[in-house]
C-alpha cells in the first residue's frame, strides 16, 4: 500500500439518487470527517418518458444518475470533497467527470454490484453492520487513497447513515414546499 498524502481536514460527499413515484430525485450532502453537515444540495425530480426509455434503453439509469442529476448536483456545489460515497451503482460513472474517488456503498447483505471490483473495509463497520464498497473498475488504482481516507474516519461512523439524513431532509423540503422551488 503506497503512502497517500491527505489534508488535515477531510470532507466527504454523500450522494443518493432514488426513485419515487416514477420520478428520479437526487440529494447531495457534504460533511466533514465527523459527519457534520457543510453543504446540502437537492435536485428536482426527473421523469423520463417512453421516448427516453427507448432511446437510452439500458443506459437510462446511468444517464439519469450520473450525467444528469449527479453532475448537476456536483456542478452546483461549492464545497470540495475528497471522497464521494453513493448508494447507487449508476452514479459510479461520475468518477470520469470529477477528480476524486467515487465509491458505492451498501450495507452488508446487499448483493448488488457483484460484477464490480469490491473493497471491503471491515474495520469501518459499526457494530452489527458490515458495509460493502464498490469502485469503478476503471479507477481501481484509487483503492489506496480510499483506504487511507477510510482509515482517517471514526470506526463508529456508519457510512450509510448520511443517506437517510439526506432523504429526511428532502422529505422536509417537500413538506415545507421548498421542493417546488428546486
Amino acid at each position, binding site marked *: 500500500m503506497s503512502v497517500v498524502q491527505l489534508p488535515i*481536514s477531510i470532507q466527504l460527499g454523500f450522494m443518493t439518487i432514488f426513485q419515487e413515484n416514477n420520478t428520479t430525485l437526487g440529494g447531495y450532502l457534504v460533511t466533514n470527517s465527523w459527519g457534520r453537515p457543510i453543504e446540502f444540495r437537492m435536485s428536482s425530480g426527473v421523469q423520463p418518458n417512453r421516448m427516453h426509455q427507448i432511446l437510452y434503453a439500458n443506459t437510462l439509469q446511468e444517464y*439519469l444518475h450520473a450525467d444528469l442529476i449527479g453532475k*448537476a448536483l456536483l456542478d452546483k456545489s461549492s464545497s470540495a470533497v475528497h471522497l464521494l460515497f453513493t448508494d447507487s451503482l449508476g452514479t459510479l460513472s461520475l468518477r470520469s467527470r470529477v477528480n476524486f474517488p467515487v465509491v458505492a456503498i451498501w450495507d452488508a447483505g446487499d448483493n448488488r454490484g457483484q460484477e464490480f471490483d469490491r473493497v471491503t473495509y471491515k474495520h469501518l463497520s459499526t457494530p452489527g453492520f458490515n458495509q460493502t464498497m464498490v469502485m469503478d473498475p476503471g479507477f481501481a488504482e484509487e483503492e489506496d487513497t480510499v483506504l487511507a481516507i477510510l482509515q482517517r474516519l*471514526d*470506526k463508529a461512523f456508519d457510512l450509510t447513515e448520511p443517506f437517510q*439524513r439526506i432523504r429526511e431532509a428532502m422529505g422536509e423540503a417537500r413538506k415545507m414546499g*421548498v421542493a417546488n422551488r428546486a
Partner: protein
Amino acid sequence: MEQENLMTLQNSSSFPETEKSQIHGIRGSLDLVESDRDDQSVVQEGNLPEKSFSEIIEPRLVLDSPKVETIALLEESSLAIIDPPSWKNELIPKIREPRLLNDSPWVRSPVPLEMKVQVSGWKFPVPIVETLPKPILNPKDSPDEEAVISDKELPDVSIPSNKIKTRIRPRPASDTVLFKDRLLYLLQPPLDHLFGDKQIAVPFKPFPYQLEGIAFLMPRHGALLADEMGLGKTAQAILSMRLLFHSGMISSALIICPKPLVFNWVREIQLWAPDLPFEFFQGDLEERRRTWFVSNCPMKIINYEMITRDAELLSDPRIGVDLVVLDEAQRIKNRTSKTAQIVCSLKRSRSWAITGTPIENRPEDLINLFAFIDPGKVPEGTPLKQIGTLTKDHILRRTKEMVQNDMPPKLIHDIPIELSPDQKISYELAEKEGVIRLNALGDTITVQHVFQLVMRLKQICNFDPVTGASSKLEQLVADMEEVSENQRKAIVFSQWVEPLEMIDKALKPFGPLQFHGKIPQLERIKILDQFKSDPSKHVILMSYGTGSVGLNLQFCDYVFLFDRWWNPAIEDQAINRAHRIGQKNPVTVIRFVVHNSIEQRIANILEAKRKLFQEVLEQAGSPASIGLSENEIFSLFDIQARPHKIAA
C-alpha cells in the same frame, strides 16, 4: 358572378320594356319553382298586390338555375306574386375562406428529447476543524480503551453497543421556522455516533435518555430541562453547548448558577467539555468589567449575586451572548425580583433553564420561568389549562423511574421520635405560651407571628434549649455507628447551622465534616474532596441552603433529615445528592419526625401536597401552592385569632 347579377338586377328600373317582360317571365319561372316546392302556392292574377320591381327581383339566387324557363307574357297582364315569408330577410352571403388552403397543417409536436433538472442548495456554518486521532502506539490498545478517561470515581455506565438500536438525532423544534435552520438540525449526525471513539471525548458514553436530552436542547432557542435531580442535567447542558460550539451555531455562552455551584460547573465542564475554554467572574467591579468587555473567552460562568451587582454593566449594548444557561432556574420564579429582571434583560438568542423543581411553590413559577425562556410565550395570568399546551414543546422532564430501570432504590424511613423529658417540658411550655400570645394579638396577628412559634418549637424538637438534650441526636448516633461499621458514608441535613455544630461534637468518632453557609467558599471544595477520598470521614453535615443543590455525592448511601424543610421539593433535592447517576447501592433516607409535635403536623400537610406536585407538571391538577400556605400555617395551632384578610 352572383354579385354582378345582383347589381344588374337592382338597376332594373331603367330596363326597357322587353327586358321587363323577360324579367316578368323570370318571376313567372320563379312561381313555377315555388309551386314546385309548395303545391298550395298558387299564382292568381289580379288578386295579389303588385310588388315593386326590386321586390320582384329579390329572389335572385335562382337566376342561374338551369331549370328556369322563360315564359312570354302579355303586356296587359298583371303579375301577382306571393312573397315567401322565409325570404323576407336579405340574404347576405357568408364567404368562408378555405382553411385547408391557407392554414399551416397541424402536426403532433415531438416530445422534448432533453431532460432538465434544477438544483437548490444550502451552506451551513463551518464546523470546527476536527482533530486527528491519536496514534495507536501499542497495537493491543484499542481505541475504546484510549477514549475512556481513567477515573475510579466515575460509574461504569457504558452502554453495550448491541443495546443501541435507534439513532438519536436532534430534530428541529416547532419554533424553528427557517428551512435552512431546520435542515441544519435534520442533517446533524446521530448523537451516539458523535460520542464515538475518536470524535468527542467523553469520560463515559452518555445514557440514551441523556442523548435525548441533548437532542432536545440543541435545536431549541428556548428550553426548560426539568429532569429529576440526579439525572445529569448539567452534563446534558454542557454536551449540548459543546456540540453547538463545534458546529459553529454559537460562539458565546453565559452560565448563571448559584454561588455554591460555580465550582461544580467548573468541574463538570472540565469533565465533559475539556476542549472548551471557560472562565468565571470574580474580583472587584473593574475585574468583572474586563471579563464582560475584554475577554474573548467563549464560555463564562457567573453566579446570581454577582450578575445582580453588575446590572449597570449589563445595560451596555455591547454585552450580548448567543446562549444563556440558567442553572437552578427556580431562582427567578419571582418575576418582580431584581435577579429575575436582570437575567431576563440579558441580550441573547438562546435561553435554556435548568431546574429539577420548575414548580417550587405555585404553578405561576412556571409562567415566570418562561418570561426568561421564551418571553411572551406564556403571558402572565395564563389559565393553568393552557400552560401545558403553550409550554409542551419547550419542557423536557424525566424521572428516575422513567429512565433508569436499574437505578438502585430510594428507601425512605420516617423514624418517629419521642421527645426526651426535658424537651417535652420545654416544648409543651413553649407551645402553650405561644398560642396564648398569638391569641392575645387578636386582629393584629400575622403569619410571621405564627411562623416564629413554629420555628421555636422545631428547634426544641432538635435540642432542648436549656439542657441540650436531644432524642434525635441519640438516634442519629446509634444509626451512625451502623453506617460507620459498614464503611458507608452519610449526609445529615438540617435547617440551621447551630444544630449542625452540636451534631458535629456528638459525631466526632465518625469524622464529621461541616458544609454550610459559615464555611468559606474556597474551603468547601477541599471539604468535599476530603469527604470523598478520606475513608475515616463517614458523615458530612450540611444545611439545606448550601448542600441541597448541585452536589454529586453518589458515594453516600445514607441521608438523614435531622429536621424537615418547609418545601418537599427542597427535601427531594437534598436527598438526590446521594440518589443520582452513578449510585450503585440503595439509598436509605431517614427522616426524623417527633411524634405528636409540630413536625408531625407539618409532615402530614407536606405529604399531601407532595402528591400534587407531579399533578401540576402533568397538568392534571391545579394546586394553589406546593409549600405551606398562610392558611395552612395558621391551622398548625388551635388559635382563634386571625388577621383581617384570613378571617374574612
